Structures are given as structure tokens and as C-alpha cells.
């Protein structure tokens, strides 16, 4: 019996760039990935995970993600997350989740002021999340980044609380490419069902593209989505 392909909704905002890559990568990992237009007010029936992709929604006007979070589909995403649904925000998607208040903190301009586009090495800080279950504790992943606003920050209290509650899932290993606090590359919310990360796992699912390490994150998400879907049936 072939395992069920869980339905993963990938939202296209005006200015999303990596929505098609995300759909391609998720489908390659055996998910039923579907694009959802930002102006929709509901997620497709049977959605078991949502991905907010990378790009420059609304031209990054004001702040990255600031405008996108008012898109009609975001009410449905917020409701889905509040009910425990799995939500993964990649790059601009991470910025949108922070602006929407689904994740703590904010992403500001890279300390170098330069756009950075290259592979980075990440270290996995937690494997007990729906996004990293296929990884090993402390495992190093090679995944590309491409952003000008990836410098994760918050006030001292917020950052201390993130560490205290172990909400940091991924950190840059060695060189910190954007100046982010405590080398943070990816965080989860307190309940662990919403994650944001600056690196692009959808660009690293095949050795031909440089690294297959991103597949570990997306396949973890698909595993968790499948389990939840099955639990509901």
C-alpha cells in the first residue's frame, strides 16, 4: 500500500518567487502540493500543512512581510495555525509569519547591508519538531540562503525567552551570514507547529542542485502532515 500523499498548500502572494520551486520540491518528496492564491479566503479542503514561500511579496515595501500579512488568505492561515496546523515559512514566508505574530521576533537588514546568496551550513538544535524529525541532533545541513533582510532579532527579553524555551531549531554553523542574534537561522513557536527559517530547503532537495539536505526538513514536514491527516480520518 502506498502511503497517502498529504495535501500541502503553498501560498502565492503578489511577489512570491519560490512558490513553484516549493511545489516542485514537495511533490518530489511525495506530497500533494497545491498553489493557493493570496486572495482566497480559505485553504483547500483537507489541507494538512501550509508553506509560505520565499520572494519579495509586495516589493518588501515598508518591511519584508508587513503588507503580505494582511492578504485575505492569512486569516485562514492564522486560524489553521491556532488550531495546531503545521505552517512553514521560508525566507519571505518567515518574515510574514513574524509580522503576523505567528512567530516571535523580526528580520531586519543584514548587518553587512549586502544581499547574500550562497550555501550556508546549519546546525540542527532540535529534532523533536515536525520540521526536523528526520534530522540528527547537531547534524550539519548545507542549504542555500538568498536574502537582504535575514538578520533575526528582538529585544533582550524576547531573545532570552527563545533560548529558555528552546525555540531555536536551526543556527548558522561557523560564519554568521547576516548578523542574526545568536546565529539564529530558524525558530518555532511555543507550541512547535509553526516554523520559520531563512535558508531555502526547497532549493536543496537533489544532489544535482548542490545538496539534498533541504529534503530532510521538507520530508519531516510531509511525515508530520501525513500522520496528522491519518489521525483525522
Amino acid at each position, binding site marked *: 500500500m502506498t502511503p497517502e500523499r498529504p495535501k500541502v498548500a503553498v501560498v502565492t502572494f503578489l511577489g512570491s518567487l519560490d512558490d513553484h520551486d516549493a511545489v516542485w520540491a514537495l511533490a518530489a518528496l511525495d506530497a500533494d502540493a497545491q498553489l493557493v492564491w493570496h486572495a482566497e479566503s480559505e485553504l483547500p479542503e483537507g489541507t494538512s500543512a501550509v508553506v509560505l514561500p520565499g520572494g519579495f511579496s509586495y516589493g518588501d515595501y515598508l518591511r519584508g512581510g508587513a503588507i503580505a500579512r494582511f492578504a485575505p488568505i492569512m486569516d485562514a492561515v492564522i486560524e489553521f495555525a491556532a488550531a495546531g496546523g503545521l505552517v512553514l515559512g521560508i525566507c519571505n514566508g518567515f518574515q510574514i509569519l513574524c509580522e503576523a505574530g505567528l512567530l516571535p521576533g523580526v528580520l*531586519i537588514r543584514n*548587518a553587512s547591508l549586502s544581499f547574500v546568496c550562497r550555501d550556508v551550513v546549519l546546525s540542527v538544535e532540535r529534532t523533536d519538531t515536525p520540521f526536523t524529525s528526520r534530522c540528527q541532533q547537531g547534524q550539519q545541513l548545507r542549504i542555500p540562503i538568498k536574502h537582504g533582510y535575514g538578520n533575526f532579532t528582538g*529585544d533582550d527579553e524576547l531573545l532570552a525567552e527563545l533560548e529558555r524555551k528552546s525555540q531555536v531549531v536551526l543556527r548558522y554553523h561557523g560564519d554568521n551570514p547576516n548578523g542574526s542574534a545568536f546565529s539564529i537561522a530558524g525558530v518555532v513557536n511555543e507550541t512547535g507547529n509553526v516554523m520559520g527559517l531563512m535558508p531555502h530547503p526547497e532549493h536543496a532537495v537533489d544532489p544535482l542542485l548542490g545538496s539534498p539536505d533541504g529534503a530532510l526538513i521538507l520530508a519531516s514536514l510531509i511525515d508530520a502532515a501525513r500522520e496528522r491527516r491519518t489521525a483525522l480520518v
Partner: protein
Amino acid sequence: MKATVLVRPKAGILDPQGEAVRGSLAKSGFDIVSVRIGRVVDVEVETSDREKALAELEQMSHDLLANPLIESYEIELLEEA
């Protein structure tokens, strides 16, 4: 009514843009202590009721124009002649 909303990076929050401009000004020979870069948003609201305008401006500043995690804002309502 017309208003100006001044958005500034909060004290203690790294401002890479201000830092770069500070470096550049220092290289140009200015004795610079610090530079912080914010944003000016000129807004005109429909209402002519001062209280209502202030309440609306407060809400839009908090919800969209500034991210209160890293930015503070000041609202200046311009008196119309």
C-alpha cells in the same frame, strides 16, 4: 486631516543602515557620534475630528507603519488653518 508619523529604530536595536551611514560620514571628515535612520510617513485621513484622527493614526502606526518590536513611532497631527 494631515499627519506625519515618525518611525524610529528603538534604542538598543541594531540599525545597520545608520551604522553604515555613520561610517561613511566619519570617513568624510565629520565628527560623528551616532546615526540612526528611521522613516517619515505623511498620512492624510478623511476625518476632521481630532480625537478620531489620533485614534486611527495610533492604530495604523501600531499595526502596520511600525513594528513595535523594533521601532517606536510619534504621531504629529498638523493643525489646519
